[in-house]
């Protein structure tokens, strides 16, 4: 045993020495960081994967990607569960890869390092890369740092089609009702879903809306609340100034609506202790008529229901009270440390640009046509081989992404008509959706006192919805909140940052 262990140690030592040597040689090769003899450009990347296993270095698609871009990719795959910790450790160590994904684009540590000039300011370069330029404006704007510059390439996400209400269209049809446009109509719809036996089975076994509230926010009910406040997130731009939505009378209306719905049994009875899995179970079992999720996620309960009920159809709402949310358009971003020479930095941007092209994006997310996917009517169907080879948008597709605004419209197995309808919904939402004004704004007080405050506020809200406290209690609480020193401070700080960013763009 001890012999074996010594052997392993010796091996490790040898490998370490070897890697040091090669690293030394590599850096000594060229000052520009780009091989002059045309040999593949070595690129180290850190990213996360959502597949059961990360792709290995001998992954066929990774190798194909290297071949097409003349690079030698050394990708460190990290599980999403521990990604935050890994980022913190890597940033602290200063030994950073050429391209590093940070999941939280505005963490305190990152802000500090950006201020210290640890990363390349990419703002002036991006115009040269047409595919990157195709990313939605919001993605770039929302990832701007405190100084209004872009220090990272956003891991782009669609801005429209995000989490919002969806409901049983077939039940509406059964009850001869129209798709609700306002919160009042929604109330009536949910009442009918609960009381009027929408599934026609003669039993009182349905509820209108299933969803949970968390300990710090409204959870599944945020869409309904935002429809009242007409604001995405906790902060609303009122005459150029950010105001906390909890102080607005619309919030009181929303709470009144919710407590009535709870009292009438239209929404989940145990919403405060409910689990995500339970809401899904209810939707899949046809017990609930509405909930909240992204556009394409509404296909999941539809698919489950259609096994027993072919008419089942969950319809994502375009808007409620004329409101629908617009997402930030990113989920973290890729940083290039300043230690990378400029020439290489440009090469890296070139690489990311190729990844954002149709060819590169398709290769990264779907692999090779005929081997990993087949395409028909613009819909790509992945093969079993793709699973075996670990080719998926959940793996290499997390690094090299071609922006597709309909990403939230499609899910595998979805029929063409549903896909087309979802695309229309995304298009409709694009016209009216509202972004979160406070994204990326920094408030020190918010970091320290914000979570506790949010929890207190949510506790009052939950109690009011559950009927444990009367609505008047909310009025008293708002009065107190207006003079809450922490909240005042946060408001000030955010507005300051907001103004700064406004003026920069």
């Amino acid at each position, binding site marked *: 045993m001890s012999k074996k262990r010594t052997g392993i140690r010796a091996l490790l030592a040898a490998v370490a020495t070897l890697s040091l040597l090669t690293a030394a040689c590599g850096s000594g090769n060229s000052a520009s960081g780009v091989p002059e003899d045309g040999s593949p450009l070595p690129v180290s990347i850190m990213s996360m994967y959502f597949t059961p296993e990360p792709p290995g270095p001998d992954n066929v698609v990774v190798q194909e990607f290297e071949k097409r871009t003349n690079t030698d990719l050394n990708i460190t795959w990290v599980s999403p569960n521990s990604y935050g910790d890994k980022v913190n450790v890597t940033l602290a160590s200063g030994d950073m890869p050429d391209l590093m994904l940070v999941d939280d684009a505005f963490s305190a540590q990152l802000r500090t390092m950006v201020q210290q000039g640890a990363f390349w300011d990419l703002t002036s370069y991006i115009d040269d890369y047409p595919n990157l330029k195709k990313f939605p404006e919001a993605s770039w704007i929302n990832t701007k740092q405190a100084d209004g510059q872009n220090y990272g390439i956003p891991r782009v996400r669609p801005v429209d089609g995000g989490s919002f209400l969806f409901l049983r269209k077939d039940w509406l049809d059964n009850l001869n009702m129209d798709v609700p446009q306002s919160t009042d109509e929604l109330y009536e719809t949910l009442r009918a879903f609960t009381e009027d036996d929408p599934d026609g089975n003669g039993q009182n076994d349905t509820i209108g809306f299933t969803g949970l509230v968390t300990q710090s926010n409204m959870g599944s009910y945020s869409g309904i609340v935002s429809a009242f406040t007409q604001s995405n997130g906790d902060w609303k731009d009122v005459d150029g100034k950010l105001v906390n939505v909890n102080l607005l009378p619309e919030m009181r209306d929303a709470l009144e609506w919710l407590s009535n719905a709870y009292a009438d049994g239209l929404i989940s009875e145990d919403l*405060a202790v409910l689990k995500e899995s*339970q809401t899904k179970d209810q939707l899949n079992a046809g017990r609930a008529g509405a909930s909240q999720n992204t556009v394409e996620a509404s296909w999941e309960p539809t698919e489950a229901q259609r096994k027993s009920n072919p008419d089942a159809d969950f319809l994502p709402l375009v808007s409620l009270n004329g409101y629908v949310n617009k997402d930030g358009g990113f989920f973290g971003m890729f940083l290039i440390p300043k230690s990378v020479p400029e020439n290489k930095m440009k090469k890296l941007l070139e690489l990311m640009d190729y990844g954002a092209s149709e060819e590169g994006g398709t290769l990264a997310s779907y692999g090779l046509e005929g081997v990993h996917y087949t395409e028909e009517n613009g819909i790509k169907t992945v093969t079993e081989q793709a699973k075996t080879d670990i080719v998926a948008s959940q793996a290499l597709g997390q690094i090299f992404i071609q922006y597709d605004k309909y990403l939230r419209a499609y899910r595998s197995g979805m029929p063409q008509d549903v896909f087309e309808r979802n695309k229309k919904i995304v298009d409709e939402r694009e016209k009216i959706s509202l972004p979160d004004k406070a994204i990326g704004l920094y408030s020190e007080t918010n970091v320290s006192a914000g979570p506790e405050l949010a929890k207190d506020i949510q506790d009052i809200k939950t109690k009011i919805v559950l009927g444990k406290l009367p609505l008047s209690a909310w009025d008293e609480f708002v009065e107190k909140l207006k003079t809450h020193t922490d909240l005042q401070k946060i408001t000030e700080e955010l507005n300051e940052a907001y103004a700064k960013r406004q003026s920069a763009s």
Partner: protein
Amino acid sequence: MASIREWAKKLPGRRSREGRGRFYRYSLILALCMASIPTAVIALSSYALGTAHVERQVMNSHRTLVERSSARLDDLFTQLELSASQWSLDPRLGADLKRANLTLEYDRTNELYSFLGLMKATYPRLEEARLLLNRSEPLLLSEWGGVQRIPFGEESKRFQNLVEDKRDMYWTEDFHWTASDAGSVVLVRKLPGYGPSYGALLLSLNRMKLETFVREAAFDEKGSSYLYAENGQPIIRVSEGMPEDQRFEQTLRQQLDDRIDAGASGSDSYLFKWQGQTYSASYSTLERSGTVWTYATVSPLEALTRPVVLLSRSLLSVSLAGMGLALVLAWFASRRLHRPIRQLAEALGEADGFAGHVSPETASSGKRRSAMADADGLFSNRVSSDVLPYDELRSIENSWKGLADAKREAERRLEQTYPELRAGFLLQWMQGHYRSLREGGLLSRLERFGWRLEQGERLAVFLLRVGVLSPPESQFREEDELLMTFAAANVAREFIDGCCERAEIVNFHDGSVAVLVPIAETDIGEKAAMKKTSHDMADTLRAVLRLRTVLCTGEAAGIMDVPELLQALRSALRGIPATESCRVLHLDELLPGTVGGTAYPFALEKELLQEIRLGRTDEAARLVREFVVRLSERTSSESELHEGTLQLLGSLLHVALENGVRLEAAGLYERLLELRRPEAVVDFLRSRVLEPYGQELEKRQGIEADRLAEKVRDELEHDYTADFSLERCAERFGVSPYTLSRSFKQTYNQTFVDYVMNLRLERARELLRTTDLKVNEIAEAVGYRPSYFIRLFRKQEGMTPGQYRTEKSG
């Protein structure tokens, strides 16, 4: 042994067994056994000892390992039990939960969620930590599944039963969360830790992770591990590379139960045999709260004993291969070793025509005979001796004994006939039959019969004749001449042995006996002694036998003169009147003129007639001349000469007739009477008698010889491979070897042996030229042993048969 013989029969080369017998076979078998059996013994013993040892060692180590593994398992379960006890005392799970409204007291619920989540995080092998609140509609809390209400009915009953169990903490091995769920292993800890229970903490183990754990704890990748509940249900079953047969496990469990029931709790190892395979089974019992689990592992021993089995097998195959090799080597070696024996056997077989020819014949016909034995009772005696297989050494021994016997017999016969031969020889000699021999030759012959005469020694000859006396005195009658002579000879011998060392007695069987005494030439005193001796002898004979005894002594200058002396003595004796009963004469005292009383030279005539008998006419002619000259010298008158010549002619014609030649006798006697001169008589006898006789004889003999030679030659050419020794062939044609050989010589101008050899070689040359037969086969075809044939051929042709063949066919 019988099977080995059967087996040996199937071997290639078996066909050529004729030349080799039992000794060869036994030595071959012995060599084989010596070479191969030790290896086979090593192989078998290493198999037996090795596997047993490995099995014992494996069992020992498995016993230790299973204890260690079960200790690990026990640790896992014990820790969980301890933790469950601790958690049950946590204030979050206090008695007030009994009436808590989980929906409204959502903070508390969330706290419980995270507590349950914490439990799960603490024990990765936990599938889920659940909290059961026993109400009319039981509530089930879990971090992942939230609050679940169990509707009243069958389902709720099952959950309520969990709480209603008397034990505070226990394991249930097969609990179904829903009716469709697979059974789980659940640790039930009733809540709260003390006081009346409102519910229970349900910690279910992740079966997959548990299996992984068991697999990790297992010490043999190939083996199976089982964890059985008290009721025999398998909780965990990790079975890899084991028979996919339910009966396998049933049998195993049966044995386990038997052992545990027999009080052998704790842990133990034993050998488990199933369908010809041996497994090492180990088990250990785990005392869980309220129940006993059994942890058992089974692993095939094959993997461990395989090297030993492999080694044994390879040794065995090596020994088999060795046996094969030894077979080949022993075959060669035995051939080499056996060659001298075979050659000896063959030589002996040739020598007495017994072993070489008879034995293989009997050996090969033995089987046939034994098959016939039932049918033919006559053979039964021979069969019993013949069924003994052919054994070279025994046959050599037999041959040797036979030869020795033959030698003894020959010696005995020789000894018996020796005196007769000797007497015969002396008789013939004295009667002048060996006139043709020289003195030296005669002397050496005499010497061979043990009678040595020195050069220049004279011989004193006593011829004594006995006769019947007047009746009152004599015991013998006239007819008893032979007996009388015999008695006289014996008495004479006794007498002469007393005084002379080298005296010889010759019995003529006609009443006369000669006594020969060698005497020194010059010794005068001797003569006187001789005379006295002769007188004494005569007196003795007269006195002892009471026979008429007349004796005449004479002296011969050499042995060649003895026959003539004998004639002279005889005629001297005839001159003695019959009235004298005892008389001794001395020849040298008589007057020469009166010797014999007749002029006819009998001795010469005898010699002449002998020559005639042998057909040597030239010699005969010389003797005729001598005879006639001698006769003419001795005779005084013409009529005496005529009488003598006529007598001779008659004798000649008589002898010719004896030899089968009938000469024209008419007028011969008359013609002879007309001749006066001795020369004319000689010429006449030569031209009219000897020459015609010689021609006739020659002609007849020539025809006969030709005929015989031709007959033999026909026979030879018909079957030249047979054994044609001169003697055998002569025997076959009823002639003497000498005659046969001479006739061949006369007819073909070569000896019989040369003729046979040339004939065979001619045939062999032809075969070499015209056929592809092997030299050995050709040699045998023409009746030679190959080695002798090649040697002979090279000597005759100046090249080997092979060279001859390439030269002639090339």
